[in-house]
């Protein structure tokens, strides 16, 4: 694997102060009666400060396991098999201290959670306690992870509710009095309450309407800019990524297959899986030809296919794909792909588009 090279190039390109988190060869497995389900299996990623990183992939590819893993919330039967997730807490504007979140004692990890890394889970309706007022739920999180006084915490809570466009009267309400969109905003307000450096949002708008989705996405993006934090946005909805992301990572079968800036991802997807994902987005207007999607089913994490994990479904499969796992290579500046179609760096854009036409 070209892990080191990748990390190296990143570091040179951006400088340490720009790097917020580095994930190195992370493997999170689940123990099952039929062996280990390798849900996340060798992920290398680097997140920069103040960016929106979109993580895409179909369900079961390990997106959520990865997101929760970074937070150190992996619970049995899941376990971290190997790897590091180094979080760089900034000390001043130019220096930062990196600590591996995965080997950190639980007590210390609590210091990082919420204060540095917040999480907006999937399905906001289900994360709020139905028998507790909104204010108590947010305040509890603040008290638990900071030393704020009562007054400060309340002021902060109201400030956060206002930031996400909620009236302060919401604080006294119970979750059932709120609509889905409002509940989602409450979880966002709670997530930003301690001004974390990183927010991981796992499919926060899947259950919402397009209108509400637009409002929430725009708010999230605005808050990200205002507070200068990094947002890792996990969803399978490529159109949302197109609206939100600065850079994108495409995940398939527990691995990252492509990382690139969002424009390149959509304009010139390199990995055949990315190409399939992008071509199966229904578009309004245009001709209504029959789309095929990506044929076949996602493989089982208990038994990944040999070689490249996408090869059974890949339209461009070659002999080498069945035997050898493709390494992650930087084929152009800031563009990484793990596919045997691209053994050497792309020389300009022209040869790549030729490759695509075939």
């Amino acid at each position, binding site marked *: 694997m070209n892990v080191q090279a990748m990390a190296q190039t990143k570091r040179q390109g951006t400088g340490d102060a720009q790097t917020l988190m580095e994930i190195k060869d992370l493997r999170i497995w689940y123990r099952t009666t039929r062996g280990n389900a390798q849900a996340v299996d060798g992920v290398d990623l680097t997140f920069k400060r103040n960016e929106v990183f979109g993580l895409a992939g*179909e*369900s*079961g590819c390990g997106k959520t396991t990865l997101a929760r893993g970074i937070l150190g919330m992996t619970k049995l039967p899941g376990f971290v098999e190997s790897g590091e997730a180094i979080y760089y807490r900034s000390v001043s504007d130019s220096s930062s201290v990196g600590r591996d979140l995965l080997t950190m004692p639980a007590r210390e990890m609590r210091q990082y959670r919420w204060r540095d890394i917040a999480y907006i889970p999937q399905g906001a309706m289900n994360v709020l306690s139905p028998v507790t007022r909104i204010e108590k739920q947010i305040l509890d999180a603040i008290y638990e992870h900071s030393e704020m006084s009562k007054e400060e915490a309340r002021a902060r809570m109201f400030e956060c509710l206002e930031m996400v*466009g909620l009236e302060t009267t919401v604080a006294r309400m119970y979750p059932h009095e709120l*609509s*889905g*969109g*409002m509940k989602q*905003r409450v979880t966002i307000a709670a997530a930003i309450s301690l001004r974390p450096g990183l927010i991981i949002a796992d499919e926060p708008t*899947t259950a*919402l*309407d*397009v*209108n*509400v*989705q*637009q*409002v929430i*996405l*725009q708010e999230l993006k605005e808050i990200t800019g205002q507070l200068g934090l990094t947002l890792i946005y996990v969803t*399978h*909805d*490529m*159109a*949302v*990524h*197109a*609206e939100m*992301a600065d850079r994108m990572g495409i995940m398939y079968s527990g691995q990252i297959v492509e990382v690139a800036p*969002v*424009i390149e*991802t*959509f*304009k010139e997807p390199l990995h055949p899986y990315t190409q*399939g*994902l*992008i071509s*199966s*987005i*229904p*578009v*309004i*207007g245009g001709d*209504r030809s*029959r*789309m*095929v*999607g*990506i*044929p076949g*089913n*996602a493989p089982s994490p208990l038994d990944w296919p040999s070689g490249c994990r996408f090869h059974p479904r890949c339209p461009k499969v070659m002999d080498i794909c069945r035997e050898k796992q493709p390494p992650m290579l930087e084929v152009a500046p800031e563009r990484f792909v793990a596919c045997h179609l691209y053994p050497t760096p792309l020389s300009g854009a022209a040869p790549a588009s030729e490759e695509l036409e075939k």
Partner: protein
Amino acid sequence: MTDPKDNTAVLEVRNVSKIFNVPTPGFEREYIAAVDQVSLALREKPAQIVSLVGESGSGKTTLARIMLGLTPPTRGQILYRGKQVSDLKKDEWWDFRRNVQPIFQDPFGIYNPFYRVDRALDMTIKNFGLASSQDEALALKSESLRAVDLRPEDVIGRYPHQLSGGQCQRVMLARTLLLQPKIIIADEPVSMIDVAVRMLFLNTLLDFRDKYDISSLMITHDLATAYYMGGPMLVLCFGRVVESGDIEQLIDKPSHAYTQQLLKAIPSPDPEARWETRANVKITDRPLTHEGDKCVYVERCPYAMPICSQRRPPDYEIEEGHYAACFLYRDKPERRRTE
């Protein structure tokens, strides 16, 4: 598209309203029209896929439940082959149950996790007496599974948790296919399955229309999905159909402010064409609307006029078959309301 005198309609909804009693802070009771004088028809020949688009809380699911005969409407009629569903005799009721089939949103929620998935198929075969022997039943099952692009050996004998969401949802389609219904009422069938697999499901629904003459009511919040399916579309806003017509007409010339807003809010899969303006939609609770009241969209509408809060806008015909319930089109002919 909902001509009341048209009798090719298999299932027709006429001026249906469903009023719910909602508690408010304080002691007064309020009433909310979850579905407010909606009319629509599903025809048999030619089979078509009608899309019903609207955000959550717009009454989509309530309407689906009314059409399936699961919830009685407060007012209005649901006609199955010209007869009121509530008046059907026992054998007619069975015929209705067989010919109008549901597909629900959550592919896992509909299976009992303790039973194998093919039990859903077995029970259907048993209840409707579709097969006279075990072998025949197995052959039927295999055939219907193949018709929805599933391999029988992948599905038969498996438990729901062993299948993916897309597979579960297609087993539901296979179950539907066993009965060869006339109408499928699909309530958000693809919102919980992956993009790559979503196409397979939608294509199956298209095949049903083309090969087996099965009409569908496709309830969705995703305009792009509705566009892919083609056919007539109704836009539901707080219980009322605010705009209806062929989907091409609606996309070309969205006339109601709500439809325009919906179209604007869809994230486009092009990172170079991002939303330019900030959405100025207030996320509020749905307004408490009553039948015959003002326009439901008046609070959010950028074109709101005094008349909008005085009475309910009737449907104006913008062009042939394209209606919008909005006073902006007062000069256009009004659609005659049917009683």
